[in-house]
């Protein structure tokens, strides 16, 4: 503000200077034109002329006198008087010109004119109106004698005046030049001042804009962390709520407060506390998407708006990520600091509809998280909290499940439709939870994938299935084959599942073709999978494409990849009846598979009609409750024992 005032002073000063210079230039130019056309100059230029006229008038007077001497009889006294008067008037003319004295300075002007005056005084009497007597010869001759030296002097003066005029003209020219130079200089100066004026005005305007921006920055952003402040946060939350309302989306609001931040301030100092807040703000930003909002409400309180949520699960993993990133040590001005945070979570529209209620909910939930021991997140809704807790426990239990041998494989027979015999089965994973009983893959596989436990679990499944198959091959059916479900995560290049499988096969002494792995269509999108598919085939393991028809289902992929089996998803089978579109799809798939030499397994067969239709269309294998539910290994063995060579469909159940 102080500088603003100073700039204003400057502007006024420059404006005044501009005005002054402008007036100066105008004045000078006006002055010039005056100078160039003024009477002064006129008089000056006339001085030489006047002197010359005086000189010639003296000559004429002289001539008139001579004529009178030569011919005294025709002497015209009127004419002589006129010539005398003219000479007289010429003397006055020279003297009365104000420029004469100046121009003829330094010449003999003054003494010559004194002599002329004397001459006029001496001879005045002869030429006055009253005495018109003709003059004596002697008088005339005396006048002529007096006149002679004057004429010579006037000649000199005339020459001198011409000379002086030249000098004066030159002088005036250089004066004009000087004036022009001065006014040009002034104009240039004025131009520079004008430029300076505009420069300052423009700079001032820019500064004003910048300070206005600064103000809006101050009004909307937290200066310490550069995060949006409470005001902007409330704005954004309102906006996001309106947007979510329009698109019928869900959004989450997280309220985060650092734990025991006071201790950091107390032990390391307020400045270091500030550094920690800055770094924490940065880390928070890294945990969310660009479109999400992280704000600092004040103190050690932060809020996060997560919009466009597909599912509420996602929020838990983000919260987990936040807790984890904050648990990393903070490098603070050479010292190390540790901090944790408590997070409260609430959802729109589930928990509340407006900004204030949402904020209150999240705050409350955060408070609960603090109460329960800090370094955790807590949901506002009980059911949500319940689900989160259940999941948390599940994750913990899953970590121990392998060690506690809580996993078990069930087997679902795969029937050869043409003969009704069973030579294959699909291994299905079951988790026998000590408290909750049997948990199905649908519930725990996503968690296993999320936590990375899927690799170890997958390897265990493979090994267990291989071991079982080997036993059954030896005891009951030498060509028996078990298919195993895999997660795409297991087949990523960085996991060495393939190596693990090879060792399993070797250790149980089983050929690869005793195992088929079921993969999902999404894997085929991954170009690098081709190489691993070749490696799998090299081991002799067969590959079955699971859930065909539900994913990306491009026939062209089938041609590109070497697939052995194709499993038609049970949703197609469920709708099978004469004339249905799904029938046409199944038929098309079967025709195509036959052409490509791929065998087809239909899943979810529940009725005889479905079985007959599929059989009629040439489907190779079928799976479903019509034949059997998945059963434990022991139950499966009973089937083998009852019908040593082939398990008959009818006997299952």
């Amino acid at each position, binding site marked *: 503000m102080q500088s603003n005032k100073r700039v204003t002073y400057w502007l006024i000063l420059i404006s005044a200077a501009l005005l002054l210079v402008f007036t100066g230039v105008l004045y000078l130019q006006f002055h010039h034109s005056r100078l160039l056309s003024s009477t002064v100059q006129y*008089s000056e230029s006339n001085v030489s002329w006047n002197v010359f006229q005086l000189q010639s008038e003296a000559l004429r007077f002289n001539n008139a006198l001579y004529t009178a001497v030569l011919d005294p009889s025709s002497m015209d006294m009127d004419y002589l008087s006129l010539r005398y008067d003219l000479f007289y008037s010429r003397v006055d003319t020279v003297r009365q010109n104000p420029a004469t004295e100046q121009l003829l300075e330094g010449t003999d002007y003054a003494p010559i004119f004194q002599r002329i005056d004397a001459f006029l005084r001496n001879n005045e009497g002869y030429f006055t109106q009253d005495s018109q007597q003709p003059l004596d010869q002697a008088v005339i001759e005396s006048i002529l004698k007096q006149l002679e030296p004057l004429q010579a002097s006037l000649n000199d003066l005339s020459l001198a005046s011409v000379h002086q005029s030249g000098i004066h003209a030159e002088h005036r020219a250089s004066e004009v030049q000087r004036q022009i130079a001065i006014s040009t200089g002034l104009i240039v100066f004025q131009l520079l001042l004008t430029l300076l004026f505009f420069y300052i005005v423009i700079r001032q305007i820019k500064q004003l804009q910048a300070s206005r921006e600064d103000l809006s920055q101050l009004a909307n952003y937290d200066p310490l962390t550069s995060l949006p402040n409470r005001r902007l946060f409330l704005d954004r939350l309102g906006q996001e709520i309106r947007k979510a309302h329009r698109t019928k989306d869900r959004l989450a609001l997280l309220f985060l407060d650092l734990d025991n931040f006071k201790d950091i301030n107390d032990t390391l100092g307020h400045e270091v506390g500030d550094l920690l807040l800055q770094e924490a703000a940065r880390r928070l930003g890294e945990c969310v998407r660009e479109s999400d909002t992280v704000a600092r409400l004040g103190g050690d309180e932060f809020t996060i708006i997560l919009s466009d949520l597909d599912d509420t699960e996602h929020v838990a993993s983000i919260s987990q990520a936040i807790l984890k990133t904050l648990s990393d040590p903070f490098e603070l001005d050479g010292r190390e600091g540790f901090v944790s945070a408590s997070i409260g979570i609430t959802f729109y529209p589930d928990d509340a509809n407006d900004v204030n209620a949402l904020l209150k909910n999240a705050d409350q939930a955060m408070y609960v998280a603090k109460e329960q021991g800090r370094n955790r997140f807590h949901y506002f809704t009980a059911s949500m909290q319940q689900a989160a807790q259940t999941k948390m426990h599940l994750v913990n239990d899953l970590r121990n499940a392998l060690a506690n041998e809580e996993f078990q494989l069930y087997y679902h027979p795969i029937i050869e439709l043409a003969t009704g015999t069973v030579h294959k089965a699909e291994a299905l994973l079951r988790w026998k939870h000590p408290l909750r009983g049997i948990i199905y893959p649908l519930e725990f596989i996503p968690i296993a994938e999320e936590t990375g436990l899927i690799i170890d679990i997958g390897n265990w499944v493979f090994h267990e299935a291989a071991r079982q198959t080997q036993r059954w091959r030896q005891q009951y059916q030498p060509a028996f084959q078990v298919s195993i479900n895999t997660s795409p995560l297991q087949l990523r290049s960085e996991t060495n599942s393939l190596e693990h499988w090879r060792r399993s096969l070797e250790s149980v002494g089983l050929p690869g073709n005793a195992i088929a792995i079921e993969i999902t269509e999404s894997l085929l999108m991954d170009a690098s999978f081709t190489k691993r598919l070749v490696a799998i085939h090299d081991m002799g393991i067969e590959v079955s494409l699971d859930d065909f028809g539900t994913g990306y289902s491009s026939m062209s992929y089938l041609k590109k990849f070497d697939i052995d089996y194709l499993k038609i998803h049970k949703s197609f089978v469920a709708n099978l009846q004469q004339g249905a579109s799904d029938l046409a799809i199944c038929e098309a798939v079967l025709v195509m598979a036959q052409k490509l030499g791929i065998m087809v397994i239909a899943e979810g067969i529940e009725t005889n009609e479905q079985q007959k239709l599929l059989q009629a269309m040439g489907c190779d294998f079928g799976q479903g409750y019509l034949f059997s539910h998945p059963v434990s290994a022991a139950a499966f063995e009973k089937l083998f024992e009852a019908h040593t060579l082939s398990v008959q469909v009818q006997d299952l159940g």
Partner: protein
Amino acid sequence: MFAFRRMIISLGLLFFAALPSHAEDAVRAKKPILTLSGAISQTNSDSGYEFDMAMLEQLPQYSFTTSTPWFPEPHKFSGPLMRDILTKVGAQGETLTAIALNDYKVSIPMDNSTRFNLIVATHKDDKRMSVREKGPLFVIYPFDSDSETQSQVYYDQSIWQLKAIHID
């Protein structure tokens, strides 16, 4: 047709006007101080139309006070208007050549006599001017009241010690 007839009438009038008339009533100057010659229709002597001081004083008098480059103070000048003198002699021309006693000459466009109140001053501050005082006749423009005349061109045309005017 009408326009044509009117032209003939104007031409006729011009013809009459152009006829030089040695008017009987024209007085001869006793002691001439100004002689007009050239394209004039009135004459009163062989050299043209001569005026003496009395004849000039009989014409309508006009006066003004003005500053001039020749006198340090403003002065009152009076005398007949140049255009009245020209009318008097029936001047029909474009240029006046004014001649001074010292044979100084200057050309004055005849228009100037109507555009400005150009006078042939016979009096300065109500007194006759002697030859010594740039008299007896001084052609002068009303410099102060007509700023257009404040320039070298008009200063040059302001001739003093006037003795004759020739009209072309």
